[in-house]
């Protein structure tokens, strides 16, 4: 609560927020949820709790999405729903990862971030592939395949003022957007995430006060995706030096880590995601939609002719990323982690070994996490973002 005493003097009272959602200390029991994902069954949600320095998966399921769509303007803020999670997900706090076409996540220099803040638009978003089709609305949100409805830069007197660079991890509102940055292992480079201010406010009020859980973290889905690797045993064994390829339904991302800190985040250009790979199989091999999984898993039909163009582009970009990590950060990548691929990992592995002489490892998303009895996960890759959101929001040190 702020009280303005005079024109220049303002005093501020900070009432304690209470509960388990306040502060920045490590959390040992929390829920990660991915909002407005492509999963058809609802919002992938996981509950993680930490016991004796080990993460346990207490629950993982698809939860019914909240009523209403993610607002696309301030006017839509009038329809603010409240959302309650099922009983087994009622941890003290929740980390929400959101898929928003208006959101942005990427690596950028300080100058670029300041420029983005000054203009109030997402400039660090990498361009969508040229082949992207206009997306249909899913769960009230335009699919990430749709071009982001970038608002026109607001040319006001305020926008010409150079904003202050935000402190590490502290969300800052500027020109109608909310920004948060974390430093790279590389000097003057940062990870930057941003959302329109109204979406941040809408998400912050989604889980009602006084009932478990309440939101302790709002992250952009890509940001959570990058953190999903943190509990992987092979990532920990490599001392946090790793090149990871994340495959999503609509996109492919490369993430580089150096001693546990981010050094690279890049969307694979001219490449659509897993769904495009399936489409290629259907079109090239002429199989039914229902048979694609069998084609990708079984050896009866060789899908490599269909996959080759798709994988080839990804492997080329992977090679570039590997060279960048080697030359810029002295990280010798001899194996690449592949995450988020539901089916067809083996074909990627063969192609990588043949083309780049590289080893691809594709651990299960929940490797390194002890799964409680009774937790049944049919499609673990769907929970990658929710898992990453929870791991990042836990802020533990391992």
């Amino acid at each position, binding site marked *: 609560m702020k009280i303005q005493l005079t024109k220049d003097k303002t005093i501020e009272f900070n009432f304690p927020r209470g509960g388990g959602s306040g502060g920045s200390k490590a959390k040992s029991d929390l829920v990660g949820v991915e909002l407005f994902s492509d999963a058809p069954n609802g919002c992938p949600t996981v509950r993680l709790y930490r016991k004796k320095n080990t993460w346990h998966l207490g629950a993982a399921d698809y939860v019914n999405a909240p009523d209403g769509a993610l607002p696309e303007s301030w006017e839509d803020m009038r329809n603010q729903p409240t959302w309650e999670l099922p009983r087994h997900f009622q941890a003290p706090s929740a980390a929400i990862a959101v898929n928003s076409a208006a959101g942005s996540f990427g690596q950028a220099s300080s100058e670029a971030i300041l420029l983005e803040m000054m203009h109030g638009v997402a400039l660090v978003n990498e361009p969508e592939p040229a082949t992207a089709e206009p997306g249909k609305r899913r769960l009230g949100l335009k699919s990430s395949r749709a071009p982001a409805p970038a608002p026109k830069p607001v040319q006001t007197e305020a926008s010409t003022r150079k904003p202050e660079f935000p402190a590490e*991890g502290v969300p800052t509102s500027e020109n109608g957007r909310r920004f948060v940055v974390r430093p790279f292992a590389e000097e003057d480079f940062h990870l930057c995430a941003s959302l329109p201010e109204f979406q941040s406010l809408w998400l912050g009020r989604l889980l009602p006060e006084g009932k478990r859980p309440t939101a302790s973290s*709002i992250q*952009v889905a890509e940001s959570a995706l990058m953190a999903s690797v943190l509990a992987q045993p092979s990532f920990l064994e490599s001392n946090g030096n790793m090149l990871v390829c994340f495959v999503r339904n609509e996109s492919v991302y490369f993430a580089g880590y150096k001693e546990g800190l981010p050094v690279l985040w890049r969307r694979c250009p001219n490449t659509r995601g897993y769904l495009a790979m399936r489409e290629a199989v259907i079109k090239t091999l002429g199989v039914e939609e229902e048979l694609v999984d069998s084609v990708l898993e079984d050896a009866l039909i060789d899908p490599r002719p269909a996959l080759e163009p798709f994988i080839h582009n990804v492997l080329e970009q992977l090679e570039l990323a590997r060279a960048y990590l080697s030359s810029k950060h002295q990280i010798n990548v001899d194996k690449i982690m592949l995450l988020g691929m539901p089916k067809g990992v083996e074909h990627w592995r063969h192609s990588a070994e043949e083309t780049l002489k590289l080893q691809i490892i594709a651990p299960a998303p929940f490797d390194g996490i002890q799964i409680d009895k009774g937790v049944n996960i049919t499609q673990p890759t769907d929970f990658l973002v929710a898992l990453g959101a929870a791991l990042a929001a836990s802020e533990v040190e391992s």
Partner: protein
Amino acid sequence: MKNASFHLNLLKDTEKLSSSPVRLRVILPTLALLACAGMAIWWGVIFTQLMLVKSQVQSIEDDIRAKSQSHTEVLAHQAEVREKKLQVEQLDYYKAGIRKLGEPLAHFAEIMPLRVQISNLSIEPPPPQILQPAGAKVPLFGPTENVETQKLVLVGRTTKETPVVAMMESLEAPMFSDLVTKEKKINSFKQDNATTGNKARLLSFEVEYTIPERRFAK
């Protein structure tokens, strides 16, 4: 490895809500308001009591003001009563100081020898009392001394010394203790030169007795 390095949290601390049903954010201002209301009620009670006491003080002052006249009169009466009591007390001193001389004087004739003729019996007046001392607003009512001494003077004639001595011995009897003490002084005993009809030879005498002390006491 720090998970926090990957936590790009867009939720501000001020927007974080408590999942606890007991919300400090609500409870604290409510308690503060209740405390303020309690203080206001308390001050109200104190103010009411103050007003009550003030009105009581006002009514008491009015009462005192109204009764001050009669109070003054009562005080004056009380002072007068004290004064009168003092006067009565002073007068009681006189009462205690009364001399009962009638009975001894009645017996005085009985013991008078035949050859003694008392020509004069006098008691000298007491010393004057200063009942209006300088500066006194009102005269004193009581004696100024606690003890008063007077003399009894017997003047007479006789034919010879013996009857006078007998008279003086008789006066030492207890019945005359209220009239005279043993302290006496013979002022004169001499030939009476006054002319008499039988031309007998007479002696005149004058004896002075000290009367017992008159004590003004309760």
